[in-house]
């Protein structure tokens, strides 16, 4: 089945640096969402970007969407140790009743 693929699989940075994660997908979508998962916990919604939007901001998060390239990026600015988590993109394909298809995630480690 169609699936978002995140890149890189793992990312290690120092506190204060920016972290960029990418997501590619295969078919047309209604929206794309990013979720965070702390170790051993459930997923928490971060941000949703609709197919007719190109960029969206929420606090230290910036998401871009390029539907022509079927790709999205998540930028976390001025990272903190508390940002250490796995980040997943999830796509809502057209006609899917809002069902999401998740990628395998990017594991982000922010070192103090």
């Amino acid at each position, binding site marked *: 089945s169609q699936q978002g693929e995140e890149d890189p699989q793992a990312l290690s940075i120092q506190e204060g640096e920016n972290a960029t994660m990418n997501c590619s997908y295969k078919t047309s979508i209604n*929206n794309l*969402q990013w979720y965070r998962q702390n170790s051993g916990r459930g997923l928490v919604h971060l941000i949703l970007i609709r197919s007719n939007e190109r960029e969206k901001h929420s606090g230290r998060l910036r998401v871009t969407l390029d539907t022509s390239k079927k790709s999205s990026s998540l930028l976390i600015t001025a990272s903190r140790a508390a940002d250490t988590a796995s980040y997943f993109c999830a796509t809502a394909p057209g006609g899917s*009743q809002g*069902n*999401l298809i998740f990628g395998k995630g990017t594991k982000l480690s922010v070192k103090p």
Partner: protein
Amino acid sequence: NAGVTQTPKFRVLKTGQSMTLLCAQDMNHEYMYWYRQDPGMGLRLIHYSVGEGTTAKGEVPDGYNVSRLKKQNFLLGLESAAPSQTSVYFCASRELIVDTQYFGPGTRLTVL
């Protein structure tokens, strides 16, 4: 609000045993979902429900059954557990017109 809760948090079964996982949400959400997450993988949809009394198959439904007798509860059953069903199971819910999903804390199931 408790949000989405899952019972139990951990369970160990022997091959062939049966069990039911309970998901409850207090947000009056129409849609509910069951996912499984395996190491290094994103979430895969098992079954979902678009309202009380309805259920539908997701990407990996084999070996599982579900029921949604009450709007706030979504049950996932394993009739005859197999080692391949060792996983972490997540429940999620969402409103009718909002695509954001809210996740429970997960149930870690081991089948020996």
